[in-house]
């Protein structure tokens, strides 16, 4: 990397950094404890704000001025709300599943007292003699944090925390490099776009750089529309400056002076935090005119997407930025030559941009050494569904699905059997057991009919019906189709109609072939990624789980006992305890009553199949079961 030292830039950055380091040192002075509460959207849903308030109140009562920070998402969403306490003399400990009562006890016993409260601890954040470290968990054998390295360790609303942990160093370095050299460095690193398609990032930059146009744009695509993916949200909520720094470097490399962050309006906290981060960066002159005294100008506007899945596609996103409906258009011309307002535009995903500062700081070789031959670096996955440790994870490319689901994710809860994993949202595919040992990267997933996509990973167990899953995804893409291409607009609708018939037990066996044929046509006949990938969930479920489709059609039976129209709830008379009324009270529609012997009976005509009685029935009786097809319910009770 060719860096020509510029004293102006160095001294401008040094001023900012020394102030940040001084504040950081002040916080971690080794004398007072520091409390951190993980309060991203997921933590807040679990009650993190209440926990935060309780801790502050309790400390306030004692006039104790221990700093309490609100940090981002640690990725361990299953154990939210999380509280981290660093007390001098003891290792830093993460506490999980904290509610207000536990928070009160933590303050009393540990922060004010000496009791380390091991009963709430998940583990220590460092190796020590006292208690096991969370890094001893099997998941950390596989995980490698690049993008998530700061997450949960810094206050996302304080730029100095980011700078103190090495932030904006890469920007200072980049500004002392030639733009071409930056692009060359990114090219050598082998960075591929994390938006889904895995296109080489440096190539877009190069094309845009070489355009003679004076006005160029750089857009950060944070329109994370995939249901089931949340890593872009977590990034923006927990470490927004990493994305901003990446954007400034990219803008400098391609010669853009105007930038946009296109973020979903459904992510209010991300919008809020990015707004704060932009203001802070501007006030430190890391953004705006004459960045770090280098003479380079660049500013970023925040744009809230209004909720259209198709806007994740770059040409549709541009249309939406221009104030039009988000309809994609034909490429070429590619946005890199003719994009926003007809000017050259580079669009990169949040994660792609967040890698950039790390690559510039550590060098291309460092990055190229991680991952597989054609897919470099790490992949961030959002683990959700039927898996013990739901949350975020970052693993090197080439890790197998089995390692991610069973070691990182901790396997399937309640001792159920793994059935399938849905990778890449509505554009991806459902993979079954045979794919578990395949090392995953951009290319290997494509071969089996899925894709990394945005990185959503939804794990399914034996209770999840594959026909229903396919129907669900198609319903989503069908609704989100912008309507421009006939095949996507009408083809997906026909496919959905067939799948709906299957889930109601009205399908015909020959529909299966029509479905496959139509799926292939939709793929070919659509312009953008939405239509081209919409059939993927249908095709992959049909490839791996054809028997389930056949059961729905031939026997009118849902093997996973999920499809509403094909199941019935039934209370086994021999298992019903009789003197217990748990199910009667729980039923939301009063469909359960006692018969003469006090055995509980479900009135099938009233039952809405919500499943509450099944949860309510005490585990030692377990009398409520699901039956499919519903005709299996003994006739005497169907009257």
């Amino acid at each position, binding site marked *: 990397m060719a860096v020509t030292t510029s004293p102006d830039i160095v001294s401008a950055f040094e001023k900012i950094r020394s102030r940040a380091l001084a504040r950081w040192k002040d916080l971690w002075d080794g004398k007072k404890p520091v409390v951190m509460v993980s309060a991203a*959207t*997921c933590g*807040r*849903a*679990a009650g993190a704000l209440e926990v935060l308030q309780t801790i502050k109140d309790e400390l306030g009562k004692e006039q104790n001025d221990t700093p309490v920070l609100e940090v981002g998402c640690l990725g361990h*969403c299953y154990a*939210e709300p999380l509280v981290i306490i660093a007390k001098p003399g003891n290792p830093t400990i993460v506490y999980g599943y904290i509610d207000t009562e536990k928070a009160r006890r933590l303050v009393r016993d540990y922060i004010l007292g000496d009791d380390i409260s091991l009963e709430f601890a998940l583990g220590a954040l460092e190796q020590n003699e006292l208690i096991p470290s969370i890094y001893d968990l099997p998941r950390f054998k596989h995980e490698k944090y690049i993008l998530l390295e700061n997450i949960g360790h810094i206050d996302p609303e304080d730029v100095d925390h980011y700078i103190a942990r090495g932030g904006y160093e890469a920007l200072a370095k980049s500004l002392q490099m030639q733009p071409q050299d930056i692009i060359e460095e990114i090219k050598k690193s082998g960075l591929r776009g994390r938006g889904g398609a895995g296109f080489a990032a440096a190539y877009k930059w190069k094309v845009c750089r070489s355009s003679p146009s004076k006005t160029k744009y750089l857009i950060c695509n944070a329109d*994370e*529309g*995939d*249901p*089931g*993916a*949340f890593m872009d*949200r*977590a990034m923006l909520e927990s470490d927004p400056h990493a994305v901003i720094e990446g954007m400034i470097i990219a803008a400098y490399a391609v010669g853009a002076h105007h930038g946009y962050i296109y973020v979903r*309006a*459904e*992510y*209010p906290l991300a919008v809020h935090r990015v707004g704060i981060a932009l203001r802070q960066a501007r006030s430190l002159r890391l953004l705006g005119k004459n960045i770090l005294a280098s003479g380079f100008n660049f500013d970023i506007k925040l*744009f*809230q997407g*209004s*909720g*259209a*899945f198709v806007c994740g596609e770059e040409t549709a996103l541009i249309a*939406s*930025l*221009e*104030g*039009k*409906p*988000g309809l994609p258009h034909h490429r070429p011309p590619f946005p890199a030559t003719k994009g926003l307002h007809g000017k050259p535009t580079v669009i990169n995903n949040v994660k792609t941009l967040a890698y950039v500062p790390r690559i510039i700081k550590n060098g291309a070789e460092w990055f190229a050494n991680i991952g597989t031959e054609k897919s470099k670096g790490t992949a961030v996955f*959002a683990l*959700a*569904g*039927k898996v013990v440790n*739901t*949350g975020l994870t970052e693993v090197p490319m080439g890790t197998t699905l089995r390692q991610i689901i069973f070691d990182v994710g901790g396997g399937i809860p309640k001792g159920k059997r793994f059935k399938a994993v*849905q990778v890449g949202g509505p554009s991806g595919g459902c993979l079954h057991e045979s794919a578990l040992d395949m090392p995953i990267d951009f290319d290997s997933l494509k071969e089996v009919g899925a894709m990394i996509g945005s990185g*959503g990973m*939804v794990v*399914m167990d034996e209770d*999840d019906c594959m026909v229903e*899953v396919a129907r*669900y*995804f198609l319903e*989503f893409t069908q*609704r*989100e*189709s*912008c*309507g421009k291409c006939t095949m996507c607009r009408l083809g997906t609708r026909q496919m959905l109609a067939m799948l709906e018939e299957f889930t109601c037990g009205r399908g015909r066996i020959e529909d299966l072939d029509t479905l496959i044929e139509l799926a292939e046509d939709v793929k070919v006949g659509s312009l953008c990624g939405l239509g081209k990938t919409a059939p993927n969930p249908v095709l992959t479920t049909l490839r791996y789980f054809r028997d389930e489709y056949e059961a729905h059609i031939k026997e009118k039976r849902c093997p996973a006992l999920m499809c509403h129209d094909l199941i019935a709830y039934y209370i086994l008379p021999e298992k019903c305890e009789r003197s217990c009324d748990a199910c009667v009270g*729980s039923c*939301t529609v009063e469909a359960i009553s006692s018969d003469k012997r006090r055995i509980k009976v479900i009135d099938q005509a009233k039952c*809405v*199949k*919500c*499943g*509450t009685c099944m949860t309510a029935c005490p585990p030692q009786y377990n009398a409520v079961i699901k039956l499919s097809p519903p005709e299996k319910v003994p006739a005497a009770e169907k009257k």
Partner: protein
Amino acid sequence: MQNTNASSNAWRNTEITSQEQGRILQKTRAVLRRFTKKRENLVPILQQVQDELGYLPREAMIEIARFLKIPKIDVYEVVTFYNQFRLTPPGRHSIRVCLGTACHMKGGYILLDAWKRRLGIDRGQTTKDREFDLDTVACVGCCAMAPVNVIDKKAEGRVSPTKIDGFLLAFKMEKEKKDKETRWQ
């Protein structure tokens, strides 16, 4: 795109008094003053007007079209294209059922059914007393807490049909308390 909010006659059925109309225009104009007359400002304008009014009434859309000097149908096109915009007035409490993949697999559709049953309305509708409006959302990004409902902008994790009855009871008690207070005043 099929938008549940935008049934074609929804904006005609909304009866608006002249007083309400004045308020709508006043608030819309206040938002418009913050913007330049560029087409690219359309979506942010719509977002802010909806923030103020809770929905986008016909009068507001016409005013925006006049301001940006674009055909009214262009504004209507954008409003009906994006899921975020609504054409009907909101209820006092907003109920959003997340139907992301994880929430769906963990029973989000059962929760939607439960809300529909309890409130007596379909998705995209508002109860007659304008107390609740019900809609779905593609994903709020708390998949690990599935199934999620967003109630008055606060995400609630691990919701169940019984929990929904609890929310409704809490709202009812809150309302009764408020009614009592106003009666005594």
